């Protein structure tokens, strides 16, 4: 079986087999993260454009690290310093970066569908690093990898997502991935952020919206927290105190979930708002594993869209242990 990923724009159109393949391909890259020398020569001579039209620290550094550990070079565009401030259109910026001949275009943008739009006009692979409130595919993959590591499976789990789900690309990518493996979803948060329409965004996937934390956590295997975007607290005007009262994940509430339930958070965490420090730092929390796994998943993504791979082929991380010579890319 050969899987071709021209772009990675969303998880929604991918099949369970394709998603499993992506996760499996990430596995050997996870091992690389533990190695004292982490750099491979797999993509030596290749260039990855990191075009972040919306501010991001974690995801940009994670993709940059992934590119570098594969031996590729990265070129960086940051919204603050770029000509989009001077009125250049998204497409013109993309064409200009493309003219410097990168092999892949990783982009984040505040408009939903922006990666899809750019991909229609570029002849190189486009990887969506988050588009508006639509999808964040690499986050969905790293979450699934983290869950699989901790619980041994991503099949038939009860997944509870808490927070501003309407505006969350992370929630959508998780639903579209885990939903293909028989997971059931309970979405919970203030009603304005958890509209009933969410129950129908992935046909065939059981999704229910509830508004009481106790009900949401019952029997949960996975609790996926979302960052409460403080700017969102103004639209609608909602008091942070009220949010804490109703939806903050604390130790007592967590006891209402499955005993072995794990807690994920895409970061950055607002300690004391959506989650208490003892839970964020507790044994059930996977927050830092998520970050580590993020690099592995992004290595797999870059490797697959740039070099391509077959299921029977040798994985680059197994083929050659990193060694001194492969480390010298310059």
């Amino acid at each position, binding site marked *: 079986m050969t899987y071709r990923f021209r772009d990675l724009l969303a998880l929604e159109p991918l099949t369970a087999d394709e998603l499993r393949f992506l996760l499996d391909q990430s596995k050997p890259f996870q091992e690389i993260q533990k190695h004292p020398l982490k750099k491979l020569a797999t993509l030596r001579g290749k260039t990855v454009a990191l075009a972040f039209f919306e501010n991001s620290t974690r995801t940009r550094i994670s993709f940059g690290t992934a590119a570098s550990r594969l031996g590729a070079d990265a070129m960086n565009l940051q919204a603050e310093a770029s000509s989009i401030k001077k009125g250049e259109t*998204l497409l013109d910026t993309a064409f200009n970066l493309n003219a410097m001949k990168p092999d892949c275009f990783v982009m984040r943008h505040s408009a*939903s*569908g*922006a990666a899809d*739009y750019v991909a229609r006009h570029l002849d190189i692979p486009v990887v969506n690093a988050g588009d508006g*409130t*639509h999808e964040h595919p690499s986050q969905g993959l790293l979450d699934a990898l983290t869950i699989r590591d901790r619980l041994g499976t991503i099949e038939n789990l009860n997944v509870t997502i808490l927070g501003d789900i309407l505006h969350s690309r992370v929630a959508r990518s998780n639903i579209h991935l885990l939903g293909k493996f028989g997971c059931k979803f309970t979405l919970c948060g203030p009603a304005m952020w958890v*509209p009933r*329409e*969410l129950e129908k965004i992935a046909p065939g996937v059981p999704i229910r919206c509830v508004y009481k934390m106790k009900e949401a956590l019952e029997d949960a295997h996975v609790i996926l927290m979302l960052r409460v975007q403080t700017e969102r607290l103004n639209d609608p005007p909602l008091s942070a105190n009220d949010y804490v009262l109703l939806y903050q994940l604390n130790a007592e509430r967590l006891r209402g979930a499955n005993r072995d339930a794990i807690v994920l958070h895409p970061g950055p965490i607002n300690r004391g708002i959506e989650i208490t420090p003892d839970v964020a730092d507790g044994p059930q929390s996977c927050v830092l594993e998520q970050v580590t796994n993020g690099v592995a998943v992004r290595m797999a993504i870059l490797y697959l869209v740039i070099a391509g791979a077959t299921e029977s082929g040798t994985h680059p991380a197994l083929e050659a242990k990193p060694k001194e010579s492969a480390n010298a890319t310059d």
Partner: protein
Amino acid sequence: MLLIKNGRVIDPASKTDAAMDLLLDGEKIQEVAAAGKIGAGAGAEILDAKGLMVAPGFIDLHAHLREPGQESSETMETGTHAAARGGFTAVCCMPNTKPINDNASVTRFILDRARATGSVRVWPIGAASVGSKGEAISEIAGMKEAGIVAVSDDGKPIATAKLARQVLDYCRSLDLPVIEHAEDVSLAAGAVMREGVTSTKLGLRGMPAAAEAVCVARDVQLAELTGARLHIAHLSAKASLEQVHSAKSRGLRVTCEVTPHHFTLIDEDVTYDSRFKMNPPLASREDRIALLEGLADGTVDAIATDHAPHEPALKEVEFDRAPFGILGFETALALALQQLVHSGKTSLMRMVELFTMGPARVLGIERKIAAGQPADLTIFSTDRAWTYSVEESPSKSRNSPFDGRKFKGGPAATIVAGRIVHKG
């Protein structure tokens, strides 16, 4: 002299559906008679309409011609050329030009440009408020004298209920219809499509159907209070239609129009392609069914295009950043045939009414085929197979979601004041 022979005349005003010939003498229809009864006089041009329908000239109540001020998207010349190709003989142009058509000088400029460069009749709509800002009433009487046929702050509703009431009152005394773009702007703020499962899935901000219906409710109440003529533009929601229906049954002078895109497409058709972005946005499956029923049962008075050209540099951007609106002239009739007539939803007669007598009544004028009437005619086919290619459009813009769509039937010839302005 122009003799149109062998056609099938369809005239809702006189309920005529018969094989008839027409003789046009300059700007007027001179004679209408059974097929073969009019002899072609010496020097008369003959237009053979064999196999074609001959209807009164189509009127579009709602279009944006962009001149003055946005000539890179459309001009009077290119817009009316596209209108002629679409079978329209008269086009009402909205006042949101640059400058806004809120005084007689701008109205006269538009009419002068239309006379100098236009292919079809242009009937300007004046702004209801100065600069369409919703603060002070514009010089409506002056604009009426210059030639406007209605007022509207299109692009948005008249800002406050108080001003809307005053405009309605004033326009009742001037006998002008007030055309409302019904939208509660606070409910619609930031939205780029209709709120629903599709907007939720795509992560695009949605406006609920209530954004329109809330404003329709306000305006219907004010129409009742004032007794004025209220026309709801590009109505898209079932809830709005029910209010228009109720207003009509109470005897209020409330009318409405529906666009071809709203009776053809729904929110589920929306992709990140900005050619699917318009305001009001594509509505729900249920709304479309209700619109089709309203078009058939008479609740809807007119089909209007909301032709809204935007040059590629403006429209071909991220969905969130793209302006609202699509081209409409050249696909309106073909979509109506496809969605209303060929599908069996309405008769051909009713469809013609929605393009002719219906909009004429909204404007308070007549539109029929009879001796002495203006020689404005729309001749069309109901069976010719063709494919719409936006590249061939005379419009300066390319923003149509219907590019490449296959049709059965469409405009064949457009006659304005006895002159053939389009022949396809």
